[in-house]
């Protein structure tokens, strides 16, 4: 028994002594690792900015859903128009008629389709979406964030088909006009009803709202937009203004992380 006890005690003592002697250094290293668990190699300043003139300008992310990422529209002569009240955008991108273009069908339809009409609605964001722009200013790197007001998915509208139909049915337009007027009258009443419901505080009718928007869209005229290419000097100027307008201001927060998380969770 005594031999066993001695053996047992010796082992423990050896282990303890080893642990203490070895861990004196590694303990501090571990603490250091905990403190500087993942040291920062590079730090880039994060600057928040706005569009130069918020009263007239707004930033939008245009998504060409039908066009692959590799497509370049830099050399294209794009024309555009907008319905500001209806938040509707139309871009006319020229078609390449030398490839995949059926001339005989164009002759048959008596319509020369040379532009691809892309249309979409400005879908406003609720904040949180930012355009990141990388800037080097006096040799220092910074990333400028500008809030995006809306994302807009634009798709082909095939309005030339409607135009062809309109041409074909031009003879019947005269006697169709009275019924059109009556339809407009119905839409008008629906819109009024929806408006009165919302003013009363009751739930608005979905169909009435839709018809109201359709009526508003049809009644609003298209307004042309002057398209400024990315390589144009004006575009360059806008880019510079966005990049360099706010780097002198330093913002600080007193909000702690737990408070910030609470606000995020509760909202």
């Amino acid at each position, binding site marked *: 028994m005594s031999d066993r006890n001695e053996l047992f005690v010796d082992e423990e003592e050896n282990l303890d002594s080893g642990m203490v002697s070895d861990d004196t250094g590694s303990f501090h290293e571990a603490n250091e690792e905990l403190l500087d668990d993942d040291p920062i190699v*590079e730090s880039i300043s994060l600057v928040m900015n706005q569009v130069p003139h918020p009263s007239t300008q707004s930033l939008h992310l245009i998504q060409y859903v039908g066009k692959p990422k590799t497509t370049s529209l830099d050399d294209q002569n794009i024309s555009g128009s907008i319905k500001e009240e209806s938040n509707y955008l139309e871009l006319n991108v020229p078609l390449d008629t030398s490839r995949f273009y059926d001339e005989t069908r164009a002759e048959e339809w008596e319509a020369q389709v040379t532009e691809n009409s892309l249309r979409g609605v400005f879908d406003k964001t609720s904040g949180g979406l930012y355009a990141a722009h990388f800037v080097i200013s006096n040799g220092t790197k910074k990333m400028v964030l500008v809030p995006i007001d809306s994302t807009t998915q634009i798709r082909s509208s095939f309005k030339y088909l409607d135009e062809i139909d309109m041409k074909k049915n031009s003879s019947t337009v005269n006697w169709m006009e009275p019924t059109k007027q009556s339809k407009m009258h119905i839409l008008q009443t629906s819109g009024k009803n929806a408006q009165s419901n919302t003013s009363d505080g009751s739930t608005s009718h979905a169909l009435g709202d839709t018809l109201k928007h359709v009526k508003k869209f049809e009644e609003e005229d298209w307004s042309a937009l002057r398209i*400024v290419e990315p390589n144009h000097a004006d575009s360059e100027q806008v880019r510079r203004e*966005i990049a360099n307008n706010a780097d002198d201001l330093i913002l*600080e927060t*007193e909000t702690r992380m737990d408070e910030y998380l609470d606000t995020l969770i509760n909202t």
Partner: protein
Amino acid sequence: MSNRLDSLNSKKPGTNASKPLLKFKPKVVTRKTQDERAKDAPTQVKEENVDRKPSQRGRGSMRGARGGRGRGNYAGTRLVSSGPLTEGSVSLGMNSTRNTIKREPGTSSSSPTPDFLQNLKVKREESVAKANSDESDSEDDGTKINMNRDYNFEEENVLFPIRPVRENDTSNEESGAESKETSPALVESRSATPMEKSQSPVKEEHIEDQLNKIKEYKAELETKITDSGDKLRKEESEKIESDFKQIVNQINNEFSEISLDETESGTSKDYMVIHLPSILPEFKRSSIVKDEDVKDENMKDEEVSVENLKEEDVKMIDEEPTRTKLAADIPNLRGRIGSLNIHKSGKISINLGNDNNLVVSKAAPANFLQELTLIDMKDTQHGDVEVTENDQKVAGSYYRLGKVNDKFIAIPSFN
């Protein structure tokens, strides 16, 4: 006339085919006289179970005992008990190996004789007389229960349910012993097939092998389960690492493509989209970096206003400017809010100050073309209105700023 029977179809004159020829003739049963009944009674059968007590079972007996409709009809008649249902014992088992329920000895299934019925009648009258004289006696009788009265039964006095006496048949044990005795013979007869004998030890070994195999397979599966968890973790960590690497490469590429001017300044051509939480910490303007060499002339006007604001220590979101109809309702925040940090491990985080950290990860890539544009709607009330070739008035300018390559997401770090 032929000897053949008349045809069924043959119609006799004066008879109607629809009416049948049969006539209902009721048979009047007349009561036999006593002598006639005595004559018809079987005299050769003698009553064997005379000393047996009458059974409580059977319709006839009950009817007779209660003095029903057939009271007195049995006078001068003799009942015969014969056939299989007259047996005294009721057997529920198929053979002697099962337990049997036996009736109490001394009971028989023979129908009550007129003498018995007469005795019963006398007894019943006596019991009625007793019941009239003393109710308590009839209640103590135990055979009748007054439902309108509460009985306080003793625990030992159990009235019902009455269980029949169950007897373990000794013949069962005997038959079991017999079966035990017979079983070796059966084994012998089975052992005549040599295959079973030869295979029995081999089978045992096979089961042990199979058990060992099952154990091994189980151990393999368990290791696989632990391995799969580790694999998933590995894959996840590898994916995150690769995402971080891609983000770092993307940022480095963007910076490397910037063409610097004389002041070593420049901007990237393309953009990225970064998704931050919709609510950011509350920021206050603290100071202004004094570096007038960098500032443009346009910035100087702003500097004055900023200095004024610094004195008042106003929140950044102070006066919301009037926004265009196309703009969203988002806070107007300008200034340096924090830093994008690239860690040694490759991790990328955003520090918004005061230990508000966000972790940056890569979003799902989009395969379609995306462009960042700035729309500047003119103030048409004061400016000149341009008109295009199609007689459309020009409402504003559409600045194509550049392509959007990637999208990142920054989420709060819960560590």
